[in-house]
């Protein structure tokens, strides 16, 4: 199967202060890839490069075979991105925020209305659809961010620490939502929580100071804690 997302030698930052250094990764339809690393490992930088928000200093990102920075095709339409801070207009309602995110992704008219209703239902935001986004709890706001990322049914979902700052209840609710994603959607998820990786991912890349240091399958036997401890130790030295 052809990869839906392929990053080659992704590099970002000045040579003396590399935030990301020659990282490779591939994602096929249905893959659930975790990016694990301590704070400052380069997870968010990599997420923003994969989503087309940042431009790499070297290397490339190809989405469904097209360069991410090829504006004639614009592969961004196949990407859904949830940044670390869920983007929302506090003065607009949840429904209005979703409608606006849909417009930005080229949806309009009846398909937009259907997409908004579907996203509200999938993320359990139906009851607060007419509430101002500025009055949502952190958990609800994160769900709104996820709903925006899912709205146009992207082939690839890029999630940057989706459970960061959430209480255990909201964390579990969000994980349930992510587990219920369509099977063909490829997900790349950055986190520093082992539980996120163990519960949501089938593969994990370990990042340390901008470098990819390991890649493992996630299964019942994988000792992620040992790998992560190794990272934390080297990161502190």
């Amino acid at each position: 199967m052809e990869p839906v997302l392929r990053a080659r030698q992704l590099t970002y930052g000045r040579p003396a202060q590399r935030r990301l250094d020659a990282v490779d990764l591939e994602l096929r339809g249905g893959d659930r890839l975790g990016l694990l690393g301590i704070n400052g490992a380069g997870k968010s930088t990599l997420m923003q490069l994969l989503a087309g928000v940042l431009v790499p200093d070297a290397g490339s990102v190809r989405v469904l075979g097209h360069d991410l920075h090829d504006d004639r095709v614009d592969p961004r339409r196949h990407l859904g991105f949830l940044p670390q801070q869920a983007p929302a207009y506090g003065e607009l309602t949840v429904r209005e925020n979703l409608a606006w995110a849909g417009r930005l992704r080229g949806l309009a008219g009846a398909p937009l209305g259907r997409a908004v209703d579907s996203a509200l239902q999938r993320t359990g935001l139906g009851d607060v659809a007419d509430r101002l986004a500025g009055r949502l709890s952190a958990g609800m706001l994160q769900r709104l961010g996820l709903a925006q990322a899912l709205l146009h049914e992207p082939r690839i979902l890029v999630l940057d620490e989706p459970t960061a700052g959430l209480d255990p209840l909201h964390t579990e609710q969000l994980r349930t939502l992510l587990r219920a994603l369509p099977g063909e959607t490829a997900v790349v998820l950055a986190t520093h929580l082992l539980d996120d990786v163990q519960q949501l991912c089938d593969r994990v890349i370990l990042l340390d100071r901008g470098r990819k240091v390991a890649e493992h399958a996630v299964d019942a036997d994988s000792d992620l804690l040992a790998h992560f401890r190794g990272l934390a130790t080297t990161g502190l030295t």
Partner: protein
Amino acid sequence: MTAAIAAHEWRRLRHGLSFWLLLALTQLLIAWLAFAQLEAFAAIAPQLKAGGSTVGATDLVVMPTANSLLLLLLLIAPLLAMGSLAGESHSGRLPLWLSSPTGSAAIALGKILGLWLGLLAPLLSACATLAVLGLGIDLDLPRLAVAVAGLALVALWLAALCVLLSGLFDHPAAALAASYGVLLLLWLLDSFSTGDTPWQRWALMPHVEPLLRGLLRSEDLLYFVSTGAAAALLTIHRLDRRRGLA
């Protein structure tokens, strides 16, 4: 998509308290200035009539007030524009825009047109106040119309310039400071020297004053259209560079 972004931007402005405060303040100041000018005009009108002067209410009431309105627009535009791209960046919403397939041209033009709508609101409400004076005194309506159209053009130019400066910074306060700095420089540029120096052609006031007097000159139109279009193109280029498309 440009129209949708403009409507979104216009809605974003209307949802902010600062927009309504600025609108109210503009209306209040223009009304106060217009009536102060009117009072002064009423005091000297008999002498002007007796002396056979051709100077009327349009010259002594409307045009000075339009000058004040221009100054207010110069103060308001950076305040409304600072939330445009710098505000999106500061509040973490810029990734929503940059990761979307919406073109940079649509984003830049939509932001500019939306801000222009925001500037037209105080402009038109102030002009309506001036037009109401026409119920009681003789106004040169064609000249007034040219001045209003000129101010609308200046507002569009301001929107393009301020959105460009907003796109250069990630913090609204930095965008605000830069906008005031650039506008102050353009405003004062012709005071630095006398005679026809190259930088005087870039000065704002020599191009605005004829418009406010009701005089349409091609060189003034060219100034606003060319520099405004250049600002819009630079904003598009800036967005493209951020997304790696340029």
